[in-house]
């Protein structure tokens, strides 16, 4: 054994310090410009224009080479239940009965500016690309599914039926964007309910539409600030919760909620050894005093005996 006690304790010390080096600044930077990425792309979804034709679903299925669906894309009985993206369908259209009648809305990954899934991932399998896409790396994923728990929009799906499962979700057609093409769904939409462009331009367009048609739209762009902002933006005539969008999500990126805890980690690493070490010192000292006292007592008793003799 080449490790003696002193070296072992040293090793523990270094380990402790290393554990304290988890960055908390990286997850929510004070400098917003890096996160907001004005040049990144996004999609503006005008919910008032969607007619529920499911062309986007079909296009998504084709461009991502997904398996054929159980019901064909012109079967509208699928609207009888609320669906969510799955490992076999990265986008779905749902029908909502709202205060202003029947409305359809497309559901997919919203591509957060500061994605909760990426904060959650312990092997850094998720990345927010400069283009705007939130992409997932098959090479390192361990399949823990914490990203699915973290996502406030219930977007990532898991291949539960596979022995070598993947996380599956919309990539904002990352590869197609690189080839200069539109995302599959945007290209297929016959109603121009979806427009692709720079996020900063999309926000301007959305504000312009609201200004020109104040009766048609709510004065709010969902995704401009929600969850710290998303690359996917929505315009709607009815309150967003009526079309299945989470309106309790707030405007902080989800990573903000774990920042306090992560900042307390180094404190524990520094304070505990000091505190526990001193308790140990007290205990040891007590024992020594007791031992010495006993010995003294014994000696005194011994000499007394001698004196009496």
């Amino acid at each position: 054994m080449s490790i003696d006690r002193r070296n072992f304790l040293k090793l523990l010390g270094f380990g402790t310090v290393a554990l304290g080096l988890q960055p908390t600044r990286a997850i929510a930077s004070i400098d917003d410009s890096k996160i907001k990425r004005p040049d990144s792309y996004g999609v503006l979804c005008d919910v008032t224009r969607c007619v529920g034709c499911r062309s986007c679903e079909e296009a998504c299925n084709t461009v991502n080479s997904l398996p054929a669906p159980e019901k064909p894309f012109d079967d509208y009985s699928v609207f009888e239940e609320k669906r969510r993206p799955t490992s076999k369908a990265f986008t779905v259209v749902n029908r909502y009965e709202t205060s202003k009648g029947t409305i359809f809305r497309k559901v997919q990954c919203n591509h957060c500016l500061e994605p909760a899934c990426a904060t959650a991932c312990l092997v850094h399998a998720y990345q927010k690309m400069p283009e705007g896409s939130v992409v997932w790396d098959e090479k390192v994923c361990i399949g823990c599914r914490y990203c699915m728990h973290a996502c406030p929009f219930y977007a990532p799906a898991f291949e539960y039926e596979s022995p070598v499962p993947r996380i599956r979700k919309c990539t904002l057609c990352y590869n197609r964007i690189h080839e200069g093409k539109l995302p599959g769904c945007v290209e297929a939409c016959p109603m121009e309910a979806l427009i692709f462009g720079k996020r900063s331009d999309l926000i301007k367009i959305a504000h312009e539409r609201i200004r020109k048609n104040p009766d048609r739209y709510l004065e709010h762009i969902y995704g401009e600030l929600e969850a710290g902002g998303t690359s996917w933006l929505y315009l709607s005539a009815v309150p967003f919760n009526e079309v299945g969008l989470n309106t309790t999500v707030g405007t902080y990126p989800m990573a903000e909620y774990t920042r306090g805890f992560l900042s307390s980690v180094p404190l524990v690493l520094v304070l505990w050894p000091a505190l526990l070490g001193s308790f140990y010192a007290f205990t040891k000292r007590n024992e020594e005093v007791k031992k010495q006292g006993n010995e003294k007592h014994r000696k005194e008793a011994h000499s007394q005996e001698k004196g009496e003799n």
Partner: protein
Amino acid sequence: MNVIKEWVAENIFLGLEVREYLRRLITPSNIVAASILIIGIPLIILRYMKGLNAVIHGSNDQPFSLFLGWGLFCGVPLAATGYIMASAVYLFGLKDYKPLLRPAVLTGFVGYFFAVMFLLVDLGRPWRLPYPMIRSFGPASILFLVAWHVALYLTVQFLEFSPAIFEWINTRKLRKWAEGITIGATIFGVILSTLHQSALGALFLLAPTKLHPLWYTPYIPVFFFISSMYAGLSMIIIESTLVYKFLPNRVDPQNHKIIDGLTLGLGKAASFVMITYFFLKIIGIAHDDHWDLLLTRPYGYQFLIEIFGFVLLPCFMYVFGVRTGDAKLVRIAAFTSVAGVILNRLTISMFGLNWELPHREFFAPKEIIVVLTIITIEVLIYRWVVNRLPVHQTHPKFAGEEE
């Protein structure tokens, strides 16, 4: 060669002829255990061949299975025994509790080991379990902290238990080395436990919209840490209760005389922690101003049952048990407290998650069988170790030597 043969005969087969040893294995409890394994192990094999859906209701909305809900979120606090007892004996000098130290460390080690076993069943690609340590790092993730800490703490607990193993294989030299690192290992163990017990709660901070507001609070890491303390204390009582009852011959005779007194002491400590926890839970409600949610069905009532029936009630049982010197009442309190911790963790990791979604399915029957199978293996291994290693008794060759 002969030395090894002798050692194996004595220490593995308990000094019995192999045939006699095997014959004695046929007991009612072993038959029950075997029948669980016969059904469960094929299911586990099936899971690796066909994917998780072969045994669970895989849900994209509710991604945490019972393997995580039970195995990790309940398994880790119930295995808090090690850091509690090691700090009591070594750091706070409560040497009277030494007879319960090794059992506590073993319970902790086996508990963490099986939390990892549950993870290996749950993870989509379990062979990548070491990736966060060696391949790709996500340091902004709370789960990254949990992974590192559980791995390190498993190692620390193995070192803490290693003197028993070295006594078993009869090597003085290694045992002496293991003794030398005790204090360092204990302090490091308490640091790691503080952080990952609370980090398991902090995992839920990331999804504020999903967990029911009665359980979602910024205090959740503190709640997880404090409840792990009384979970650990209660588990030490439960472990000794079971071993002293079912394996009395494996316990030093003089320990049988003092165990009631030690149980009362543990109970007293647990009662202090639990009353603190109870008031902190109330402060949590006040802090978030959720008084109005307490009388809603079903979650408000469930919360009230949890903190009155499974925290305050066992806390009072501990207090009265200690006052009247009633060790039996303290033992009942221990079982009730642990049930409360299990209820709390399952609520947070399963029942109270995504509470606003219209359709949720929790666990499939096969999932429960797999959990039972792994628990059975855990109990069998624990019993195997207690039957052979000096856990509840001092090794005759090392008796009287300071550890």
